[in-house]
């Protein structure tokens, strides 16, 4: 099979999985088996693309023109492949986790859930493979829409309100800022293709370039830069597997991935005249402010959501420094944060399923009842903070290196301070779970269902594995800045 065929096949497999999930409504085991099979096929597709892409090939597919001169087009480059690999690899354990969670909590509409989930992954792969801004925009909006039923899954008033915030902010930013930015790019540059070195150079004045940069950065609301971050905590009304895969991996990573992609392939690493200082400032502010909010949040999922906002800001900050090292760091951090944060959410969902607890203050001593879950939580926390032996240390290393390279002391200080704050909001949870005595009374419980525990231990193990064998992500991240 040629690389081009695989490129088309990868998202289609997930669409087929969605159709199958809907058709196999009556046979839940068969339905989940189909999802697992599709996930494995998707991973196989992406792995098959690795050797040619690492060797410098850019498998590309163009569909018939949608607008004059503008076609839907796929082109696989290192960063996109990295993002797609992360989403697909974490999708597999998520299926096992989800089926344990949905069945243990007796959730309704399970077929709709799996169908929308598969479509989200298809959209994420579409974003990852997008060969131009139009294609990126198409799948970006699709991702918002197919995840809405997942966010409002419970269908109650709270879910409805969360869903409204989710749609309003994501569609609002993309329509108000991203679409005009894309059309303006089209008017100025005459092309929307992602080209190494950028397409805006010498086409726009510095002022316009800076304006466009800000439109892109805020328009990609999925990157959750303040003040357009509120959709992410609002999305926490969703069942936890959704928060785990979508709001720690697929959706938010699609956001920062798009920001990185726009900076690298639209502006180029020589910035096309744009002033990146405002973006650095906004990212730095978001990083610190969200950490402070996380520090004070008692609801576990809310704390994790604000932690995500803060960690996403690392990626934006890193790429906004536009030093080669920091861009590599940004790409690596997309992977590192995904693996760590999904583990944390998996653990939060396991706690909810086994003990029906949602607050940090209720977690005293729970680590002795759920040792696997909280061991995994601890490992993932280390990665989140950026301590060895986890993959978080690797990406932090590059980001710090990039800040030196860019000679930006402010960014350096923010990264260090952010690290301390993240230790401040994560380690107390581990401390409570293992070292504080459990409150008297309360129902006896053990670990969550086995499929959930296996999934979260697997992703925790991945945070360590990735630092021992960092070749693939590192090679892909380096491919991004190689000329």
């Amino acid at each position, binding site marked *: 099979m040629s690389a081009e065929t695989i490129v088309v096949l990868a998202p289609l497999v997930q669409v087929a999985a969605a159709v199958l999930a809907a058709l196999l409504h009556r046979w839940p085991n068969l339905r989940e088996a189909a999802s697992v099979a599709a996930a494995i096929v998707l991973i196989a597709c992406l792995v098959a693309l690795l050797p040619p892409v690492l060797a410098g090939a850019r498998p590309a597919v163009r569909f018939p023109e949608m*607008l*004059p001169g503008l076609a839907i087009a796929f082109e696989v480059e290192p960063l996109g492949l990295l993002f797609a690999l992360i989403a697909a690899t974490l999708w597999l354990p998520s299926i096992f986790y989800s089926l344990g969670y949905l069945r243990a909590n007796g959730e309704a509409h399970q077929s709709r859930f799996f169908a929308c989930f598969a479509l989200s992954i298809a959209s994420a792969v579409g974003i990852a493979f997008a060969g131009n801004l*139009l294609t990126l925009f198409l799948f970006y909006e699709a991702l918002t829409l197919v995840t809405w039923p997942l966010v409002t899954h419970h269908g109650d008033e709270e879910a*409805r309100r969360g869903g409204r915030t989710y749609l309003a902010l994501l569609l609002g930013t993309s329509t108000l800022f991203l*679409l*005009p930015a894309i059309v303006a790019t089209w008017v100025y540059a005459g092309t929307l293709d992602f080209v190494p070195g950028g397409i805006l150079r010498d086409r726009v004045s510095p002022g316009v370039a800076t304006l466009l940069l800000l439109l892109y950065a805020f328009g990609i609301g999925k990157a959750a830069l303040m003040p357009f971050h509120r959709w992410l905590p609002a999305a926490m009304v969703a069942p936890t597997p959704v928060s785990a895969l979508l709001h720690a991996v697929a959706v938010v990573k699609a956001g920062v991935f798009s920001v990185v992609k726009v900076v690298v392939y639209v502006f180029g690493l020589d910035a096309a005249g744009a002033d990146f200082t405002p973006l650095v400032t906004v990212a730095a502010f978001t990083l610190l402010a969200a950490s402070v909010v996380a520090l004070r949040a008692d609801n576990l999922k809310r704390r994790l959501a604000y932690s995500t906002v803060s960690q996403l800001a690392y990626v934006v900050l890193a790429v906004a420094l536009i030093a080669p090292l920091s861009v590599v760091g940004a790409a690596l951090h997309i992977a590192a944060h995904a693996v760590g944060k999904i583990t944390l959410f998996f653990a939060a969902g396991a706690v909810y399923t086994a003990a029906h607890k949602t607050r940090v203050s209720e977690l005293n001593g729970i680590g002795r009842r759920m040792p696997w879950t909280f061991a995994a939580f601890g490992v993932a926390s280390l990665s989140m903070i950026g301590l060895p032996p986890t993959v978080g240390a690797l990406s932090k290393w590059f980001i710090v290196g990039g800040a030196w390279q860019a000679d930006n002391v402010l960014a350096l200080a923010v990264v260090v301070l952010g690290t301390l704050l993240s230790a401040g909001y994560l380690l107390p949870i581990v401390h409570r779970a293992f070292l504080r005595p459990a409150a008297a009374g309360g129902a006896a419980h053990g670990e969550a269902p086995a499929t959930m525990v296996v999934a979260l231990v697997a992703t925790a193990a991945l945070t360590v594995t990735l630092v021992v064998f960092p070749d693939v992500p590192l090679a892909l991240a380096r491919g991004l800045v190689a000329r």
Partner: protein
Amino acid sequence: MIAEHLPALQVVLPLVAAPLIVPLRRDTAAWLVATLVSVAAFGIAVALAIAVADAGAISYALGSWPPPWGIEYRVDALSAFMLVLVAGTGALVMPYARASIAAEVSGHQVYLFYAMYCLCLAGLLGIVITGDLFNIFVFMEISSLSTYVLIALGRQRRALLAAFQYLIVGTIGATFYVIGIGLLYLVTGSLNIVDVATRLQDVTEVRPLLAALAFITVGLGLKLALFPLHQWLPNAYAHAPSVVTTFLAATATKVSVYVLIRFYFLVFGHAFALDGLPLRSLLVGLSAVAIVAMSLVALFQPDLKRMLAYSSVAQIGYITLGLGLANAAGLTGSLAHLVNHGVTKGALFLLAGGIAFCCGSTSIADLRGLSRRMPWTAFAFVVAGLSLIGVPGTAGFTSKWFLVEGALENGQPWIVALIVASSLLAVAYVWRVVEAMYLALPDAPAPAQASTAASMLMRASTAVSVALTVVLGFVTAYNVGYARRAVALLLEGIS
């Protein structure tokens, strides 16, 4: 032999069918005739469009009286495009009409509906195809008079009031139009569009021309529901039978826009009408208010059909906005939106008709929990709603893209802001319905009689129209492609 008379057949066929239906009286026979005529008209329109694309504009001298003395039927890139839209809508809604009209119109009036529909179709096609200014007026009256009857056929008595309101406004509009062309005739001594345009080049006395332009703009503005001349539209759309609403929403206002475009670009010339006068700012300003204010009004409508009607006024604003931008991208957006909005709003009104058919109400409060009772309808509403919003991958996106591009090329970023703000309002009013359908539970279990299943034909028509909203988002040769050809014709114009 027949091929060369296609332009005449295009209009004559439905025109002759109308009086034939009346003596038939039988509902089924009337429906059959109307459907066959609609399909045939669509076939003719497609054949003409292909012929024009291959060999350029067709000029047909009615009764072999050569223009400018006789009436000329003229099929060019622009009118072929509109013929396909109008006839296509007719062919699409007729299969749907069978069951829907039987449910929504009193039994003894059903055959009259089909007769009036054929007249209306003939009138609209005539307006599009004719190359004669007075002939436009004649066909405009044919379509308007039949439209008044069609609206009045609605079961509720308020339909009568709505029809009467439209009758008053429509008559004023037609009168203004005829005053306008009277002035043009005074100045040029001709009624043939090409001939008038040629003679106008030598006219130095602009005062009567200005008066003509003003009368025609206001007259057609009433007909096409240009804000703030839109007062008749929400009532008419809300109280007319669903099929009528669908057909009118997709064609009647669009045809008036088409006439306005012809006047601006092919009669007066945009150098005179748009560049030399403040008309452009006026159009842009009114459209800008329309797309924002009317979307806001739509947001607060308690009834689905009324909401869609106000949304139509806003969407017409998009079309006139592109006209006011008057550059290639803006006009392409404008013309493409004629089709895109026609298809999208047509699909939505068909769905609303299906809901009325099955549940007996289109009040948004009664839509709660609809996703359980009518899962396909609810899903289709989401799809067509996305096109109304203009999400990429739907028809609505393509026209929005060109409008934004046109505004940027004109250096008017504030218009871009208004366009996107209006899209967000569209998200709000569409999602209000989606939430009701998917997330809210009905207050009481649905009444037993409310489970009339829609007929297969209704479902088929609706499915085709909803599918079109997506297909036209990806395959843009038929909306954007033809729009670009028509724009080339307009801008070359008479310059």
